[in-house]
């Protein structure tokens, strides 16, 4: 176990995978320079410019080339720089990568990882702060992963690289510098297994990504013992753990940074209601962003932000209902 940042954990995991498998390589803007969050730092020195490839500003082709490279037997890491720029490569991700195995009847597979750091960070405003994870959970063919701790950043990246499915990995921009304990040769973490971050009977609280530390703090601060789950992967997601917990607590709170309307919280709520039945449920709430873009100015951005205090309040509401 070593204490390190989220970025360093991810960097180390990638280096370990690249040592393990010579078919793993990465492409994206400024990768030779280490990536904009340092998550590729030093890799070009070890792996050379054939495996750490700095590309033109050509998101469609970064993504589409990743697919072609996967179809020819390599395992590319497609780096989108920030999630918002994936909007420039959506056809390649959604109509090509996600569907290639299916529409060709299993002849080929897009075994690749698309990394897209997401969310609010340093007042980046409307075009650089989006959380579109719900979109990707809606797309058949994709695995969607959203780590919230350095250890999970490492373990899930390893699983993503070894997965034969295309995996979208959404790193929370705001947590790149967050620190945590990471095992020295971190094991891959399976998809679809939530981390049970806290235990309690008052409510079931579900979250992921940048909200993980916020929810953990909020739950501590309000002093109400809840079951807190960090989903870690959104598709597949650990429905069993959440449903089992809700059967006991009868109360569900889902917290995410993304816009609430049609966010993944809606899916969690709908599935839990379908699985548990309305009889077993006393209270349900989603805490996410208002349906507004992310503004620049700090007081405005703060008005959109999920904070420990808002989480604590929501837990009180749900637990007390």
């Amino acid at each position, binding site marked *: 176990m070593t204490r390190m940042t989220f970025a360093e954990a991810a960097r180390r995991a990638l280096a370990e995978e690249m040592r393990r498998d010579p*078919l793993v*390589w990465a*492409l994206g803007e400024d990768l030779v320079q280490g990536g904009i969050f340092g998550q590729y730092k030093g890799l070009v020195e070890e792996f050379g410019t*054939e*495996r750490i*490839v700095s*590309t*033109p500003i*050509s998101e*469609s*082709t970064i*993504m*589409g*080339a*990743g*697919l*072609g*490279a*996967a*179809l*020819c*037997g*390599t395992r*590319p890491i497609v780096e989108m720089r920030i999630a918002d720029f994936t909007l420039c490569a959506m*056809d*390649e991700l959604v*109509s*090509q990568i996600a569907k*290639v*195995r*299916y*529409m*060709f*009847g*299993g*002849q*080929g597979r897009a075994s690749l990882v698309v990394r897209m750091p997401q969310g609010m960070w340093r007042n980046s405003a409307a075009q650089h702060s989006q959380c579109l994870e719900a979109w990707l959970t809606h797309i*058949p*063919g*994709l*695995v969607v992963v959203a780590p919230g701790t350095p250890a999970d950043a490492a373990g899930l990246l390893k699983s993503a690289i070894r*997965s*034969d*499915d*295309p995996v979208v990995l959404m790193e929370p921009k705001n947590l790149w510098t967050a620190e945590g304990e990471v095992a020295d040769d971190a094991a891959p973490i399976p*998809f*679809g297994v939530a981390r049970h971050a806290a235990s309690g009977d008052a409510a079931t609280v579900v979250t992921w990504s940048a909200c993980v530390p916020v929810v953990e703090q909020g739950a501590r601060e309000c002093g109400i013992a809840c079951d807190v789950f960090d989903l870690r992967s959104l*598709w*597949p997601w650990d429905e069993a753990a959440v449903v089992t917990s809700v059967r006991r607590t009868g109360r569900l709170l889902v917290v995410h940074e993304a816009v609430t309307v049609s966010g993944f919280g809606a899916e969690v709520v709908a599935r839990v209601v379908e699985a548990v039945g309305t009889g077993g449920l006393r209270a349900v709430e989603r805490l996410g962003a208002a349906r507004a873009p992310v503004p620049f100015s700090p007081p405005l951005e703060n008005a959109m932000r999920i904070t420990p205090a808002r989480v604590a309040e929501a837990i009180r509401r749900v637990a007390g209902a």
Partner: protein
Amino acid sequence: MPGRSNETARRIAMLRDMARIRAFEQEAVAAMRSGEAPGVVHPSIGQEGVAVGVCSNLKRADRITSTHRGHGHAIAKGADARAMMLELHGRAGGSCGGKGGSMHIADFAVGMLGANGVVGAGIPIACGAAQAIRLTKEDAIVACFFGDGAVNRGPFLEGMNWAALYRLPVLFVCEDNGFAAFTRNSAVTAGGGPAVRAEACGVPATAVNGEDALAVDAAASELVARIRGGAGPQFLHAKCYRWEGHTGTDVAAYRPAEEAAAARERDCIRRLAAVLEAEGVPGAEIASIEAQAVAEMQGHRGAAMVAPWPDPGAAFSDVQDAGAPA
């Protein structure tokens, strides 16, 4: 045949494939019109010389990416025509198990990485395929087919720059049939055309008469040799004409009938046949090649019509391993 040169034998093989493509598509269009085959087909009738001229210079290990108008590319690359016909009919045993249909024909076994329903989408895929080939030190190249309409989409520019930048082993083949769906492509394209654009991004371009299969073959042979020699990507601009409508049901009312009629006069198959006859191949042999092609494809169509449907459960397989639909 005693005394027949390798070259002639090769040309006969080209003619055979062109005839097979034509026969395949004639059956496909008929099957679509009659309702036997679901969905739409985009026939490349009249353009067979481009697919065959290029693919006769490819090895099995080489890859191709294709378009919505991809039957010819697939057959020319050696794809299983019966499986293709089954696929067009949505039957079990189809190339994609019935999941893809005409617009998603693929045959990975022969390096045919797939038709594509999105104009221009094959260009980035071809670039990445070539990058992987480089990384794994495979001895292969990639041929990337697209239409003249694709040169107005962003990925065209990105892909040309990309291939030139990394000096990738890609042969870009622009099949310029003059139309993008119902619009004459010259009415929506400015500047000097596909080749000029490719060159502006650093990909050397060659123009060829796509209605002359031997000219395509000669040009492709030269370009493929350069690519295998490490010269980086090359661009082949092949002028041709789409005899049929955009799809099997489009009557192409947006163009004068004489224009299409004139194109039919320039038939790439007859043109190659004439060369072969001049080289001494008997007309009867040519006729028999064409008849065999028709018989083959009629056979495939007949087989497809009676082939079993895929199991409905297949609708939910091959989606993904983790989180597959229940």
